[in-house]
Protein backbone atom coordinates (compact mmCIF):
# COMPACT_ATOMS: atom_id res chain seq x y z
CA UNK A 1 0.00 0.00 0.00
CA UNK A 2 2.65 2.50 1.01
CA UNK A 3 4.67 1.27 -1.98
CA UNK A 4 1.89 2.22 -4.34
CA UNK A 5 1.66 5.54 -2.57
CA UNK A 6 5.35 6.18 -3.04
CA UNK A 7 5.60 4.76 -6.57
CA UNK A 8 2.55 6.36 -8.15
CA UNK A 9 1.43 9.33 -6.16
CA UNK A 10 4.67 10.95 -5.02
CA UNK A 11 6.13 11.48 -8.55
CA UNK A 12 2.88 13.23 -9.44
CA UNK A 13 3.06 15.79 -6.69
CA UNK A 14 5.52 18.19 -8.38
CA UNK A 15 3.59 17.88 -11.64
CA UNK A 16 0.31 18.58 -9.91
CA UNK A 17 1.78 21.64 -8.25
CA UNK A 18 3.20 22.86 -11.55
CA UNK A 19 -0.11 22.35 -13.35
CA UNK A 20 -1.90 24.14 -10.57
CA UNK A 21 0.43 27.11 -10.85
CA UNK A 22 -0.08 27.22 -14.61
CA UNK A 23 -3.82 27.08 -14.24
CA UNK A 24 -3.68 29.83 -11.67
CA UNK A 25 -1.46 31.99 -13.88
CA UNK A 26 -3.91 31.68 -16.76
CA UNK A 27 -7.28 31.47 -15.06
CA UNK A 28 -6.55 33.62 -12.01
CA UNK A 29 -6.53 36.92 -13.91
CA UNK A 30 -9.43 35.71 -16.04
CA UNK A 31 -11.52 34.94 -12.98
CA UNK A 32 -10.61 38.32 -11.57
CA UNK A 33 -11.75 40.02 -14.79
CA UNK A 34 -15.00 38.09 -14.76
CA UNK A 35 -15.64 39.01 -11.13
CA UNK A 36 -14.92 42.67 -11.72
CA UNK A 37 -17.19 42.76 -14.74
CA UNK A 38 -20.20 41.79 -12.62
CA UNK A 39 -19.22 43.62 -9.44
CA UNK A 40 -21.26 46.67 -8.74
CA UNK A 41 -19.81 47.36 -5.31
CA UNK A 42 -16.50 45.86 -4.27
CA UNK A 43 -13.86 47.38 -2.03
CA UNK A 44 -11.00 46.36 0.22
CA UNK A 45 -10.76 44.25 2.37
CA UNK A 46 -13.67 42.16 1.05
CA UNK A 47 -12.67 39.00 -0.88
CA UNK A 48 -15.78 39.02 -3.04
CA UNK A 49 -17.97 41.77 -4.51
CA UNK A 50 -20.58 43.13 -2.17
CA UNK A 51 -23.18 43.74 -4.83
CA UNK A 52 -23.55 41.85 -8.13
CA UNK A 53 -25.19 42.88 -11.37
CA UNK A 54 -24.90 43.56 -15.10
CA UNK A 55 -25.23 47.31 -14.86
CA UNK A 56 -21.80 47.97 -16.30
CA UNK A 57 -22.35 45.52 -19.16
CA UNK A 58 -25.51 47.45 -19.96
CA UNK A 59 -23.52 50.67 -19.77
CA UNK A 60 -20.89 49.33 -22.19
CA UNK A 61 -23.41 48.06 -24.71
CA UNK A 62 -25.52 51.21 -24.54
CA UNK A 63 -26.00 52.11 -28.24
CA UNK A 64 -24.55 55.64 -28.07
CA UNK A 65 -22.13 55.07 -25.21
CA UNK A 66 -18.37 55.61 -25.29
CA UNK A 67 -17.72 51.91 -25.21
CA UNK A 68 -19.79 51.07 -28.30
CA UNK A 69 -18.25 53.98 -30.13
CA UNK A 70 -14.72 52.84 -29.42
CA UNK A 71 -15.60 49.23 -30.26
CA UNK A 72 -16.90 50.50 -33.58
CA UNK A 73 -13.76 52.53 -34.12
CA UNK A 74 -11.57 49.58 -33.30
CA UNK A 75 -13.34 47.27 -35.73
CA UNK A 76 -13.47 49.75 -38.60
CA UNK A 77 -9.79 50.60 -38.15
CA UNK A 78 -8.87 46.90 -37.91
CA UNK A 79 -10.78 46.07 -41.10
CA UNK A 80 -9.11 48.85 -43.08
CA UNK A 81 -5.73 47.92 -41.62
CA UNK A 82 -6.28 44.35 -42.87
CA UNK A 83 -7.28 45.56 -46.34
CA UNK A 84 -4.28 47.87 -46.70
CA UNK A 85 -1.88 45.29 -45.26
CA UNK A 86 -3.08 42.52 -47.57
CA UNK A 87 -3.01 44.82 -50.58
CA UNK A 88 0.69 45.19 -49.89
CA UNK A 89 1.47 41.77 -48.40
CA UNK A 90 -0.04 39.65 -51.21
CA UNK A 91 2.04 41.08 -54.06
CA UNK A 92 5.09 41.51 -51.83
CA UNK A 93 4.82 37.98 -50.42
CA UNK A 94 4.36 36.52 -53.89
CA UNK A 95 7.35 38.39 -55.26
CA UNK A 96 9.50 37.41 -52.29
CA UNK A 97 8.48 33.77 -52.58
CA UNK A 98 8.66 33.39 -56.36
CA UNK A 99 11.09 35.85 -57.87
CA UNK A 100 14.73 35.35 -57.10
CA UNK A 101 15.02 38.81 -55.61
CA UNK A 102 18.66 39.53 -54.82
CA UNK A 103 17.86 41.36 -51.58
CA UNK A 104 15.27 38.91 -50.30
CA UNK A 105 16.47 38.71 -46.70
CA UNK A 106 17.22 42.41 -46.58
CA UNK A 107 13.70 43.27 -47.71
CA UNK A 108 12.19 40.93 -45.15
CA UNK A 109 14.30 42.52 -42.44
CA UNK A 110 13.39 46.02 -43.65
CA UNK A 111 9.76 45.28 -42.79
CA UNK A 112 10.94 44.44 -39.29
CA UNK A 113 12.75 47.73 -38.84
CA UNK A 114 9.87 49.81 -37.37
CA UNK A 115 9.68 47.24 -34.59
CA UNK A 116 13.33 47.62 -33.74
CA UNK A 117 13.15 51.12 -32.23
CA UNK A 118 11.54 52.25 -28.96
CA UNK A 119 7.94 52.69 -30.04
CA UNK A 120 7.14 55.74 -27.90
CA UNK A 121 10.02 57.68 -29.43
CA UNK A 122 8.99 56.60 -32.93
CA UNK A 123 5.33 57.48 -32.50
CA UNK A 124 5.91 60.88 -30.94
CA UNK A 125 7.80 61.78 -34.10
CA UNK A 126 5.29 60.08 -36.36
CA UNK A 127 2.54 62.06 -34.62
CA UNK A 128 4.45 65.27 -35.27
CA UNK A 129 4.88 64.48 -38.95
CA UNK A 130 1.26 63.38 -39.30
CA UNK A 131 0.19 66.62 -37.69
CA UNK A 132 1.96 68.45 -40.49
CA UNK A 133 0.01 66.43 -43.07
CA UNK A 134 -3.27 66.82 -41.22
CA UNK A 135 -3.31 63.09 -40.48
CA UNK A 136 -3.16 63.41 -36.70
CA UNK A 137 -6.43 62.48 -35.03
CA UNK A 138 -7.80 60.86 -38.22
CA UNK A 139 -8.79 57.30 -39.06
CA UNK A 140 -6.36 57.32 -42.00
CA UNK A 141 -3.50 58.22 -39.71
CA UNK A 142 -4.34 55.46 -37.25
CA UNK A 143 -4.81 52.90 -40.03
CA UNK A 144 -1.39 53.84 -41.44
CA UNK A 145 0.26 53.40 -38.05
CA UNK A 146 -1.44 50.03 -37.54
CA UNK A 147 -0.54 48.90 -41.05
CA UNK A 148 3.15 49.53 -40.49
CA UNK A 149 3.00 47.26 -37.44
CA UNK A 150 0.88 44.58 -39.06
CA UNK A 151 2.86 44.51 -42.27
CA UNK A 152 5.85 42.66 -40.81
CA UNK A 153 3.71 39.67 -39.96
CA UNK A 154 1.48 39.97 -43.01
CA UNK A 155 4.43 39.94 -45.40
CA UNK A 156 6.30 37.20 -43.59
CA UNK A 157 3.29 34.93 -43.38
CA UNK A 158 2.22 35.64 -46.97
CA UNK A 159 5.74 34.86 -48.17
CA UNK A 160 5.63 31.57 -46.31
CA UNK A 161 2.18 30.77 -47.68
CA UNK A 162 3.24 31.39 -51.29
CA UNK A 163 6.50 29.47 -50.79
CA UNK A 164 4.45 26.50 -49.65
CA UNK A 165 2.63 26.34 -53.01
CA UNK A 166 4.37 23.82 -55.25
CA UNK A 167 5.86 25.61 -58.23
CA UNK A 168 5.12 22.63 -60.46
CA UNK A 169 1.39 23.25 -60.01
CA UNK A 170 1.83 26.70 -61.53
CA UNK A 171 3.90 25.23 -64.32
CA UNK A 172 1.22 22.63 -64.98
CA UNK A 173 -1.38 25.40 -65.27
CA UNK A 174 0.85 27.36 -67.64
CA UNK A 175 1.44 24.20 -69.66
CA UNK A 176 -2.34 23.77 -69.96
CA UNK A 177 -2.58 27.26 -71.41
CA UNK A 178 -3.39 29.48 -68.43
CA UNK A 179 -1.96 33.01 -68.46
CA UNK A 180 0.19 34.22 -65.59
CA UNK A 181 -2.67 36.13 -64.00
CA UNK A 182 -5.11 33.25 -64.44
CA UNK A 183 -2.60 30.86 -62.89
CA UNK A 184 -2.21 33.16 -59.93
CA UNK A 185 -5.95 33.61 -59.43
CA UNK A 186 -6.97 29.96 -59.91
CA UNK A 187 -3.99 28.03 -58.55
CA UNK A 188 -1.54 30.05 -56.47
CA UNK A 189 -3.89 32.29 -54.52
CA UNK A 190 -6.47 29.61 -53.58
CA UNK A 191 -3.69 27.32 -52.38
CA UNK A 192 -2.06 30.10 -50.37
CA UNK A 193 -5.40 31.23 -48.95
CA UNK A 194 -5.21 29.54 -45.51
CA UNK A 195 -1.91 31.33 -44.89
CA UNK A 196 -3.27 34.64 -46.20
CA UNK A 197 -6.32 34.25 -43.96
CA UNK A 198 -4.07 33.62 -41.00
CA UNK A 199 -2.09 36.76 -41.73
CA UNK A 200 -5.34 38.74 -42.15
CA UNK A 201 -6.57 37.61 -38.74
CA UNK A 202 -3.19 38.29 -37.23
CA UNK A 203 -3.15 41.83 -38.56
CA UNK A 204 -6.74 42.29 -37.35
CA UNK A 205 -5.69 41.30 -33.84
CA UNK A 206 -2.61 43.48 -33.86
CA UNK A 207 -4.73 46.44 -34.90
CA UNK A 208 -7.34 45.66 -32.26
CA UNK A 209 -4.71 45.54 -29.51
CA UNK A 210 -2.55 48.43 -30.70
CA UNK A 211 -2.12 51.11 -28.07
CA UNK A 212 1.00 53.26 -28.33
CA UNK A 213 0.60 54.42 -31.93
CA UNK A 214 -3.11 55.06 -31.52
CA UNK A 215 -2.44 56.98 -28.35
CA UNK A 216 -0.05 59.41 -30.01
CA UNK A 217 -1.59 59.65 -33.46
CA UNK A 218 -5.30 59.17 -32.81
CA UNK A 219 -5.94 61.20 -29.69
CA UNK A 220 -8.19 62.97 -29.01
CA UNK A 221 -10.57 62.20 -31.87
CA UNK A 222 -10.04 58.51 -32.51
CA UNK A 223 -10.64 56.43 -29.38
CA UNK A 224 -10.26 52.67 -29.73
CA UNK A 225 -10.91 49.87 -27.25
CA UNK A 226 -7.39 49.80 -25.79
CA UNK A 227 -7.57 53.58 -25.25
CA UNK A 228 -10.93 53.22 -23.57
CA UNK A 229 -9.48 50.47 -21.41
CA UNK A 230 -6.57 52.72 -20.54
CA UNK A 231 -8.81 55.66 -19.67
CA UNK A 232 -11.15 53.49 -17.62
CA UNK A 233 -8.39 52.02 -15.50
CA UNK A 234 -6.77 55.44 -15.05
CA UNK A 235 -10.10 56.66 -13.68
CA UNK A 236 -10.33 53.61 -11.41
CA UNK A 237 -13.35 52.24 -13.25
CA UNK A 238 -12.28 48.59 -13.08
CA UNK A 239 -15.66 47.32 -14.22
CA UNK A 240 -15.46 49.02 -17.61
CA UNK A 241 -11.76 48.07 -17.90
CA UNK A 242 -12.56 44.41 -17.17
CA UNK A 243 -15.41 44.23 -19.67
CA UNK A 244 -13.25 45.85 -22.34
CA UNK A 245 -10.43 43.37 -21.70
CA UNK A 246 -12.86 40.47 -21.95
CA UNK A 247 -14.16 41.79 -25.28
CA UNK A 248 -10.61 42.16 -26.58
CA UNK A 249 -9.93 38.57 -25.58
CA UNK A 250 -12.65 37.09 -27.79
CA UNK A 251 -10.95 37.54 -31.19
CA UNK A 252 -7.61 36.28 -29.84
CA UNK A 253 -9.15 33.04 -28.66
CA UNK A 254 -10.98 32.72 -31.99
CA UNK A 255 -7.68 33.14 -33.80
CA UNK A 256 -5.99 30.41 -31.77
CA UNK A 257 -8.83 28.06 -32.64
CA UNK A 258 -8.54 28.96 -36.33
CA UNK A 259 -4.79 28.35 -36.37
CA UNK A 260 -5.23 25.06 -34.62
CA UNK A 261 -7.97 23.97 -36.98
CA UNK A 262 -6.96 25.22 -40.43
CA UNK A 263 -3.36 26.21 -40.75
CA UNK A 264 -1.20 23.50 -42.19
CA UNK A 265 2.07 22.84 -40.44
CA UNK A 266 4.04 23.26 -43.66
CA UNK A 267 2.95 26.88 -43.93
CA UNK A 268 4.13 27.61 -40.40
CA UNK A 269 7.35 25.73 -41.02
CA UNK A 270 8.15 27.97 -43.98
CA UNK A 271 7.77 31.17 -41.98
CA UNK A 272 11.32 30.71 -40.81
CA UNK A 273 12.83 30.29 -44.27
Amino acid at each position, binding site marked *: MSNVWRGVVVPWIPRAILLGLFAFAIFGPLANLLLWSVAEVWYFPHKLPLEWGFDFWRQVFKPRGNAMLSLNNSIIIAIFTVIVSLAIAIPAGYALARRNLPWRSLILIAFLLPQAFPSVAVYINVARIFYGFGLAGTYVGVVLVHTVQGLVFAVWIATAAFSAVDRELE*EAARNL*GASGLRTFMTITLPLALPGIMASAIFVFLISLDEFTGTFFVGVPDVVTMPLLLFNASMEGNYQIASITSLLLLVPSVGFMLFIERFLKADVLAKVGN
Partner: protein
Amino acid sequence: MTMTSHAASVRFENVTKAYGAVVAVDRVSFTIEPGQLVTLLGPSGCGKTTTLRLIAGLEMATDGKIYIGENDVTKLPVTDRDVSMVFQSYALFPHMSVNENVGYGLKVSGVKKREAQERSQEALRLVGLSDLGERMPAALSGGQQQRVAVARALVLEPQVLLFDEPLSNLDAKLRRRVREEVREIQQNLGLTTVYVTHDQEEALAVSDRIVVMKNAAIAQEGTPRELYDNPADSFVADFIGDANIVEGTVLGSGGETANVRIGSLELELPCRSAAAGPAKIAIRPEAIRLSAGDHGAGMRGTVRKATYLGNHLEYTIETEIGQLFVSDPHVESPAAPGDAVAVQFERRGVTLISDQTGDTNGAPEPSAR
Protein backbone atom coordinates in the same frame (compact mmCIF):
# COMPACT_ATOMS: atom_id res chain seq x y z
CA MET B 1 -16.91 12.12 -79.82
CA THR B 2 -13.43 10.67 -80.14
CA MET B 3 -9.95 11.94 -79.71
CA THR B 4 -8.23 13.05 -82.85
CA SER B 5 -4.55 13.31 -83.38
CA HIS B 6 -2.73 16.48 -84.29
CA ALA B 7 0.59 14.72 -83.94
CA ALA B 8 3.54 16.79 -85.10
CA SER B 9 7.24 16.18 -85.35
CA VAL B 10 9.76 17.63 -82.90
CA ARG B 11 13.17 18.76 -84.04
CA PHE B 12 16.12 20.01 -82.00
CA GLU B 13 18.96 21.74 -83.80
CA ASN B 14 22.06 22.18 -81.65
CA VAL B 15 20.01 23.12 -78.62
CA THR B 16 21.92 24.23 -75.53
CA LYS B 17 20.49 25.13 -72.14
CA ALA B 18 22.78 26.60 -69.52
CA TYR B 19 21.92 27.64 -65.96
CA GLY B 20 24.78 30.00 -65.28
CA ALA B 21 27.86 27.79 -65.38
CA VAL B 22 25.87 24.53 -65.39
CA VAL B 23 25.19 23.26 -68.89
CA ALA B 24 22.11 21.05 -68.54
CA VAL B 25 21.70 20.36 -72.28
CA ASP B 26 24.71 20.64 -74.56
CA ARG B 27 24.29 21.08 -78.34
CA VAL B 28 21.62 18.42 -78.67
CA SER B 29 20.11 17.59 -82.06
CA PHE B 30 17.42 15.02 -82.83
CA THR B 31 14.24 14.54 -84.80
CA ILE B 32 11.11 12.82 -83.59
CA GLU B 33 8.71 11.70 -86.32
CA PRO B 34 4.97 12.34 -85.90
CA GLY B 35 3.18 9.57 -84.02
CA GLN B 36 6.34 8.04 -82.60
CA LEU B 37 7.18 7.40 -78.98
CA VAL B 38 10.77 8.40 -78.33
CA THR B 39 12.42 7.81 -74.97
CA LEU B 40 15.09 10.00 -73.48
CA LEU B 41 17.14 7.55 -71.46
CA GLY B 42 20.06 8.31 -69.20
CA PRO B 43 21.28 8.44 -65.63
CA SER B 44 19.98 11.03 -63.19
CA GLY B 45 21.19 14.55 -63.90
CA CYS B 46 22.03 14.00 -67.58
CA GLY B 47 19.53 16.60 -68.79
CA LYS B 48 16.40 14.59 -69.62
CA THR B 49 13.90 16.71 -67.70
CA THR B 50 15.48 19.89 -69.01
CA THR B 51 15.11 18.61 -72.58
CA LEU B 52 11.44 17.90 -71.92
CA ARG B 53 10.91 21.34 -70.40
CA LEU B 54 12.56 22.91 -73.44
CA ILE B 55 9.99 21.18 -75.68
CA ALA B 56 7.15 22.39 -73.43
CA GLY B 57 8.51 25.93 -73.28
CA LEU B 58 8.90 25.83 -69.51
CA GLU B 59 12.57 26.59 -70.18
CA MET B 60 13.92 28.70 -73.00
CA ALA B 61 16.92 27.48 -74.98
CA THR B 62 20.16 29.36 -74.44
CA ASP B 63 21.18 28.50 -77.99
CA GLY B 64 19.95 26.51 -80.98
CA LYS B 65 16.54 26.01 -82.57
CA ILE B 66 13.47 23.97 -81.64
CA TYR B 67 10.79 23.07 -84.19
CA ILE B 68 7.38 21.55 -83.62
CA GLY B 69 5.97 20.47 -86.95
CA GLU B 70 7.12 23.12 -89.41
CA ASN B 71 7.09 25.92 -86.86
CA ASP B 72 10.09 27.40 -85.15
CA VAL B 73 8.93 27.51 -81.50
CA THR B 74 12.29 28.40 -79.98
CA LYS B 75 10.98 31.71 -78.64
CA LEU B 76 7.31 30.75 -78.28
CA PRO B 77 6.01 31.07 -74.70
CA VAL B 78 4.75 28.00 -72.87
CA THR B 79 1.06 28.94 -73.13
CA ASP B 80 1.24 29.17 -76.92
CA ARG B 81 2.75 25.74 -77.48
CA ASP B 82 0.47 22.85 -78.27
CA VAL B 83 2.35 20.51 -75.95
CA SER B 84 1.03 18.74 -72.85
CA MET B 85 3.22 17.44 -70.09
CA VAL B 86 2.63 14.74 -67.50
CA PHE B 87 4.80 15.84 -64.59
CA GLN B 88 6.86 13.41 -62.56
CA SER B 89 4.93 14.52 -59.45
CA TYR B 90 1.67 14.54 -61.53
CA ALA B 91 1.13 18.14 -60.36
CA LEU B 92 -2.62 17.64 -59.90
CA PHE B 93 -4.36 20.72 -58.51
CA PRO B 94 -5.19 19.60 -54.96
CA HIS B 95 -8.10 22.03 -54.54
CA MET B 96 -9.92 20.83 -57.65
CA SER B 97 -11.87 17.66 -58.30
CA VAL B 98 -10.76 15.15 -60.94
CA ASN B 99 -13.26 16.66 -63.40
CA GLU B 100 -12.01 20.18 -62.73
CA ASN B 101 -8.42 19.05 -63.12
CA VAL B 102 -9.06 17.38 -66.45
CA GLY B 103 -11.26 20.24 -67.66
CA TYR B 104 -8.84 22.99 -66.59
CA GLY B 105 -6.99 23.24 -69.90
CA LEU B 106 -10.25 23.32 -71.88
CA LYS B 107 -11.72 25.96 -69.59
CA VAL B 108 -8.77 28.33 -69.86
CA SER B 109 -8.70 27.94 -73.64
CA GLY B 110 -12.35 29.00 -73.79
CA VAL B 111 -13.97 25.72 -74.84
CA LYS B 112 -17.73 25.79 -74.16
CA LYS B 113 -18.78 24.18 -70.90
CA ARG B 114 -20.87 21.49 -72.56
CA GLU B 115 -18.15 20.43 -74.97
CA ALA B 116 -15.53 20.62 -72.23
CA GLN B 117 -17.55 18.23 -70.09
CA GLU B 118 -17.92 15.74 -72.93
CA ARG B 119 -14.25 15.84 -73.78
CA SER B 120 -13.21 15.46 -70.13
CA GLN B 121 -15.49 12.47 -69.81
CA GLU B 122 -13.97 10.94 -72.93
CA ALA B 123 -10.44 11.48 -71.64
CA LEU B 124 -11.31 9.96 -68.26
CA ARG B 125 -12.90 6.99 -70.04
CA LEU B 126 -9.70 6.48 -72.03
CA VAL B 127 -7.67 6.12 -68.84
CA GLY B 128 -10.37 4.03 -67.16
CA LEU B 129 -11.52 6.54 -64.54
CA SER B 130 -15.04 7.41 -65.76
CA ASP B 131 -16.56 6.98 -62.31
CA LEU B 132 -14.14 9.04 -60.27
CA GLY B 133 -14.76 12.51 -61.71
CA GLU B 134 -16.15 13.93 -58.48
CA ARG B 135 -13.26 12.78 -56.29
CA MET B 136 -10.53 15.05 -55.02
CA PRO B 137 -6.96 14.06 -55.99
CA ALA B 138 -6.03 13.33 -52.38
CA ALA B 139 -8.70 10.62 -52.31
CA LEU B 140 -7.06 8.72 -55.18
CA SER B 141 -4.31 6.11 -55.18
CA GLY B 142 -0.97 6.90 -56.81
CA GLY B 143 -1.90 4.96 -59.92
CA GLN B 144 -5.23 6.75 -60.24
CA GLN B 145 -3.60 10.15 -59.76
CA GLN B 146 -1.25 9.30 -62.56
CA ARG B 147 -4.14 8.46 -64.86
CA VAL B 148 -5.79 11.78 -64.05
CA ALA B 149 -2.57 13.52 -65.01
CA VAL B 150 -2.53 11.59 -68.29
CA ALA B 151 -6.20 12.41 -68.97
CA ARG B 152 -5.57 16.09 -68.22
CA ALA B 153 -2.78 16.08 -70.81
CA LEU B 154 -4.65 14.00 -73.42
CA VAL B 155 -7.85 16.03 -73.33
CA LEU B 156 -6.21 18.96 -75.12
CA GLU B 157 -5.32 16.70 -78.06
CA PRO B 158 -1.79 18.10 -78.11
CA GLN B 159 0.68 18.00 -80.98
CA VAL B 160 3.21 16.52 -78.58
CA LEU B 161 2.73 14.64 -75.31
CA LEU B 162 5.50 14.64 -72.73
CA PHE B 163 6.04 12.17 -69.88
CA ASP B 164 8.63 12.79 -67.18
CA GLU B 165 9.45 9.49 -65.47
CA PRO B 166 5.76 8.55 -65.29
CA LEU B 167 6.33 5.30 -63.43
CA SER B 168 8.79 6.50 -60.81
CA ASN B 169 6.13 7.10 -58.13
CA LEU B 170 4.29 3.82 -58.67
CA ASP B 171 4.98 0.57 -56.92
CA ALA B 172 6.84 -2.08 -58.85
CA LYS B 173 3.79 -4.25 -59.55
CA LEU B 174 1.87 -1.43 -61.22
CA ARG B 175 4.71 -0.24 -63.41
CA ARG B 176 4.54 -2.89 -66.10
CA ARG B 177 0.78 -2.47 -66.49
CA VAL B 178 0.84 1.32 -66.58
CA ARG B 179 3.63 1.45 -69.12
CA GLU B 180 1.71 -0.93 -71.36
CA GLU B 181 -1.39 1.23 -71.04
CA VAL B 182 0.55 4.38 -71.83
CA ARG B 183 1.99 2.71 -74.91
CA GLU B 184 -1.43 1.46 -75.98
CA ILE B 185 -3.09 4.88 -75.70
CA GLN B 186 -0.15 6.49 -77.49
CA GLN B 187 -0.38 4.03 -80.37
CA ASN B 188 -4.17 4.12 -80.62
CA LEU B 189 -4.23 7.90 -80.76
CA GLY B 190 -1.09 8.15 -82.86
CA LEU B 191 0.42 10.71 -80.50
CA THR B 192 3.91 12.09 -80.82
CA THR B 193 5.30 11.30 -77.40
CA VAL B 194 8.54 12.06 -75.62
CA TYR B 195 9.06 9.81 -72.64
CA VAL B 196 11.76 10.31 -70.04
CA THR B 197 13.12 7.47 -67.95
CA HIS B 198 16.32 6.29 -66.34
CA ASP B 199 15.20 2.67 -66.53
CA GLN B 200 16.55 0.83 -69.55
CA GLU B 201 14.05 -2.01 -69.38
CA GLU B 202 11.17 0.48 -69.44
CA ALA B 203 12.78 2.27 -72.37
CA LEU B 204 13.25 -0.94 -74.36
CA ALA B 205 9.64 -1.94 -73.66
CA VAL B 206 7.78 1.21 -74.73
CA SER B 207 9.89 3.00 -77.33
CA ASP B 208 9.91 3.30 -81.08
CA ARG B 209 13.27 4.96 -80.71
CA ILE B 210 15.58 5.67 -77.79
CA VAL B 211 17.86 8.66 -77.33
CA VAL B 212 20.54 7.77 -74.79
CA MET B 213 21.84 10.83 -72.97
CA LYS B 214 25.00 11.24 -70.98
CA ASN B 215 26.50 14.39 -69.45
CA ALA B 216 23.95 16.72 -71.11
CA ALA B 217 24.66 15.33 -74.59
CA ILE B 218 23.37 12.50 -76.76
CA ALA B 219 25.44 9.33 -76.46
CA GLN B 220 23.54 7.33 -79.07
CA GLU B 221 20.19 7.23 -80.78
CA GLY B 222 18.35 4.37 -82.43
CA THR B 223 15.67 1.72 -82.17
CA PRO B 224 15.77 -0.46 -79.04
CA ARG B 225 17.15 -3.30 -81.16
CA GLU B 226 19.90 -1.18 -82.70
CA LEU B 227 21.02 0.10 -79.32
CA TYR B 228 21.05 -3.32 -77.75
CA ASP B 229 22.79 -5.06 -80.64
CA ASN B 230 25.18 -2.29 -81.63
CA PRO B 231 26.02 -0.04 -78.71
CA ALA B 232 28.35 2.70 -79.87
CA ASP B 233 30.42 2.82 -76.73
CA SER B 234 30.88 1.17 -73.37
CA PHE B 235 28.53 3.65 -71.69
CA VAL B 236 25.61 2.68 -73.92
CA ALA B 237 26.57 -0.99 -73.82
CA ASP B 238 26.56 -0.94 -70.05
CA PHE B 239 23.50 1.29 -69.67
CA ILE B 240 21.25 -0.69 -72.01
CA GLY B 241 21.33 -4.22 -70.71
CA ASP B 242 24.40 -5.62 -69.00
CA ALA B 243 27.72 -5.92 -70.75
CA ASN B 244 31.20 -7.24 -70.08
CA ILE B 245 33.63 -4.69 -71.50
CA VAL B 246 36.87 -6.47 -72.42
CA GLU B 247 40.10 -5.66 -74.25
CA GLY B 248 40.75 -7.21 -77.63
CA THR B 249 42.72 -6.68 -80.82
CA VAL B 250 41.43 -5.89 -84.28
CA LEU B 251 43.49 -8.03 -86.65
CA GLY B 252 42.05 -6.62 -89.83
CA SER B 253 38.80 -5.52 -91.34
CA GLY B 254 37.20 -5.99 -94.70
CA GLY B 255 33.84 -4.72 -95.85
CA GLU B 256 31.17 -5.30 -93.24
CA THR B 257 33.21 -7.34 -90.79
CA ALA B 258 36.39 -7.27 -88.78
CA ASN B 259 38.53 -10.08 -87.43
CA VAL B 260 38.99 -9.62 -83.74
CA ARG B 261 41.06 -11.53 -81.23
CA ILE B 262 39.70 -11.77 -77.70
CA GLY B 263 42.20 -13.55 -75.52
CA SER B 264 42.89 -16.86 -77.24
CA LEU B 265 39.73 -16.74 -79.37
CA GLU B 266 39.27 -15.21 -82.78
CA LEU B 267 35.90 -13.87 -83.95
CA GLU B 268 34.45 -12.21 -86.99
CA LEU B 269 32.35 -9.25 -85.85
CA PRO B 270 30.14 -6.95 -87.89
CA CYS B 271 31.60 -3.49 -88.06
CA ARG B 272 31.73 -0.57 -90.47
CA SER B 273 35.25 0.60 -89.94
CA ALA B 274 37.83 -0.44 -87.44
CA ALA B 275 41.52 0.33 -87.47
CA ALA B 276 43.78 -2.61 -86.72
CA GLY B 277 45.10 -2.55 -83.15
CA PRO B 278 43.76 -2.70 -79.59
CA ALA B 279 40.01 -2.28 -79.17
CA LYS B 280 37.18 -2.56 -76.65
CA ILE B 281 34.55 -5.22 -77.01
CA ALA B 282 31.19 -5.42 -75.28
CA ILE B 283 29.94 -8.93 -74.57
CA ARG B 284 26.36 -9.51 -73.42
CA PRO B 285 26.08 -11.93 -70.47
CA GLU B 286 23.69 -14.14 -72.46
CA ALA B 287 26.10 -14.28 -75.45
CA ILE B 288 28.57 -16.35 -73.47
CA ARG B 289 28.30 -20.14 -73.79
CA LEU B 290 29.79 -22.36 -71.12
CA SER B 291 30.61 -26.02 -71.49
CA ALA B 292 31.73 -28.28 -68.68
CA GLY B 293 35.35 -29.44 -68.29
CA ASP B 294 38.51 -27.95 -69.73
CA HIS B 295 38.77 -30.12 -72.84
CA GLY B 296 36.05 -28.43 -74.94
CA ALA B 297 36.67 -25.80 -77.60
CA GLY B 298 37.03 -22.20 -76.35
CA MET B 299 38.75 -20.21 -73.69
CA ARG B 300 39.63 -21.81 -70.33
CA GLY B 301 37.77 -20.48 -67.34
CA THR B 302 37.04 -21.19 -63.69
CA VAL B 303 33.69 -20.64 -62.00
CA ARG B 304 34.04 -18.13 -59.16
CA LYS B 305 30.40 -17.59 -58.27
CA ALA B 306 27.17 -19.32 -59.27
CA THR B 307 23.70 -17.95 -58.46
CA TYR B 308 20.47 -19.79 -59.18
CA LEU B 309 17.64 -17.41 -60.16
CA GLY B 310 14.82 -19.76 -61.12
CA ASN B 311 14.69 -19.34 -64.88
CA HIS B 312 18.40 -18.80 -65.35
CA LEU B 313 21.77 -19.03 -63.66
CA GLU B 314 24.27 -16.24 -63.18
CA TYR B 315 27.96 -17.00 -63.08
CA THR B 316 31.13 -15.08 -62.50
CA ILE B 317 33.88 -16.77 -64.52
CA GLU B 318 37.58 -16.09 -64.12
CA THR B 319 39.32 -16.09 -67.52
CA GLU B 320 42.49 -14.86 -69.18
CA ILE B 321 40.65 -11.66 -70.20
CA GLY B 322 39.39 -10.97 -66.69
CA GLN B 323 36.17 -11.82 -64.87
CA LEU B 324 33.12 -12.36 -67.04
CA PHE B 325 29.53 -12.03 -65.92
CA VAL B 326 27.44 -14.78 -67.54
CA SER B 327 23.72 -15.40 -67.77
CA ASP B 328 22.96 -19.04 -68.63
CA PRO B 329 19.45 -20.39 -69.33
CA HIS B 330 20.56 -24.04 -68.87
CA VAL B 331 19.46 -24.52 -65.28
CA GLU B 332 19.35 -28.32 -65.37
CA SER B 333 23.14 -28.83 -65.26
CA PRO B 334 24.59 -26.07 -63.08
CA ALA B 335 28.31 -25.63 -62.58
CA ALA B 336 29.65 -25.14 -59.08
CA PRO B 337 32.29 -22.66 -57.86
CA GLY B 338 35.72 -24.02 -58.62
CA ASP B 339 34.62 -26.00 -61.69
CA ALA B 340 36.64 -25.67 -64.87
CA VAL B 341 34.64 -24.55 -67.91
CA ALA B 342 35.23 -23.73 -71.54
CA VAL B 343 34.01 -20.27 -72.66
CA GLN B 344 32.73 -19.44 -76.12
CA PHE B 345 31.04 -16.36 -77.56
CA GLU B 346 28.04 -16.12 -79.81
CA ARG B 347 28.24 -13.59 -82.61
CA ARG B 348 25.07 -11.80 -81.71
CA GLY B 349 25.72 -9.97 -78.48
CA VAL B 350 29.42 -9.33 -79.05
CA THR B 351 30.14 -5.82 -80.32
CA LEU B 352 33.18 -3.81 -81.19
CA ILE B 353 32.77 -0.46 -79.49
CA SER B 354 34.34 2.79 -80.45
CA ASP B 355 35.75 4.40 -77.34
CA GLN B 356 39.38 3.86 -76.51
CA THR B 357 39.25 4.27 -72.78
CA GLY B 358 36.00 2.70 -71.70
CA ASP B 359 35.89 5.44 -69.09
CA THR B 360 32.28 6.49 -68.52
CA ASN B 361 33.12 9.71 -66.71
CA GLY B 362 35.26 11.25 -69.41
CA ALA B 363 34.53 14.00 -71.90
CA PRO B 364 31.29 13.73 -73.86
CA GLU B 365 31.61 11.26 -76.67
CA PRO B 366 30.78 12.36 -80.18
CA SER B 367 27.30 11.43 -81.30
CA ALA B 368 27.17 8.02 -82.92
CA ARG B 369 25.32 9.25 -85.96
